[in-house]
């Protein structure tokens, strides 16, 4: 039980954000209205994606320096879950955009950046699927993964700040304190980010263990 404290923490934090996210006080903003509460659910998806992808790239680098196939399993499964939370972020963002910006998809720097990032990571899985030999696949994928993460930083963090974006705080520094996050919201937003990251790590953990079992069975038969 002690070993699983972070899973319990993840569940507690997300449960707290679901309850407090709906019942807590939020500032009344034109256009946004109550949808401002989406901040507690849509944005943590992206934070989780970036955290999980960072984990993935760290394991890729570890693999390159050790050639330990376990690191490759970690990197690949992390990227998988990162894609899942990224897709959720993209879909929820699209719904939110429909009711605030007026369209499912707008030509926003951050949106297009997110779309390109998704494609880059899809290519990562295509690349993995196209190499049969295990160590070779792990090596090629690890090198590509480093490139993919750099592109993620460029498309999601750098370019939206250099251009105008509909996302708050872009076209400059995304200082949350400007108008979109008061101290009430912070008390829900930060737990939400930590909670969702931990929950995503849990899912990665499950996938990695299942993958190791599968590999073990294949090796022994």
């Amino acid at each position, binding site marked *: 039980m002690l070993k699983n404290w972070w*899973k319990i923490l993840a*569940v507690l934090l*997300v*449960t707290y954000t*679901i*309850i407090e996210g*709906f*019942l807590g006080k939020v500032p*009344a*903003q*034109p256009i946004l*209205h*109550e949808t401002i509460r989406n901040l507690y659910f849509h944005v943590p998806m992206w934070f989780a994606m970036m955290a999980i992808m960072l984990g993935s790239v760290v394991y890729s680098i570890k693999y390159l320096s050790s050639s330990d196939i376990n690191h490759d399993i970690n990197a690949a499964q992390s990227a998988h879950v990162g894609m899942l939370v990224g897709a959720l972020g993209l879909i929820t963002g699209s719904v939110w955009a429909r009711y605030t910006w007026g369209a499912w998809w707008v030509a926003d720097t951050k949106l297009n950046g997110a779309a390109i990032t998704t494609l880059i990571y899809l290519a990562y899985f295509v690349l993995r699927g196209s190499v049969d030999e295990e160590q070779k696949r792990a090596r090629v994928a690890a090198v590509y993964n480093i490139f993919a993460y750099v592109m993620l930083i460029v498309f999601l963090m750098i370019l939206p700040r250099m251009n105008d974006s509909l996302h708050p705080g872009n076209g400059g520094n995304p200082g949350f304190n400007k108008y979109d996050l008061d101290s009430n919201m912070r008390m829900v937003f930060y737990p939400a980010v930590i909670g969702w990251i931990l929950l995503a790590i*849990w*899912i990665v953990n*499950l996938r990695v*263990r*299942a993958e190791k*079992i599968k590999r*073990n*069975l294949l090796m*022994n038969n």
Partner: protein
Amino acid sequence: MKKNAALFTFLFLSISGYSQQNSNVEMANDLYLSGKIYVVVTVLSIIFIGIVIYLIALDRKICKLEKEINKK
């Protein structure tokens, strides 16, 4: 003086206009007043707890498989 008075009047009008604009933002006040927002919170909590129970079940299943493989 007259100019200043006009300026202050305008300033006052614009400030009151701004505050009015802010209080006119539509929020789901009725939903909160009637208390029915708790229904939404309950539904979402149930869904989330369901997913968590599923994850715990998966975790246990994988744990068992790991133990079996280690026995071999």
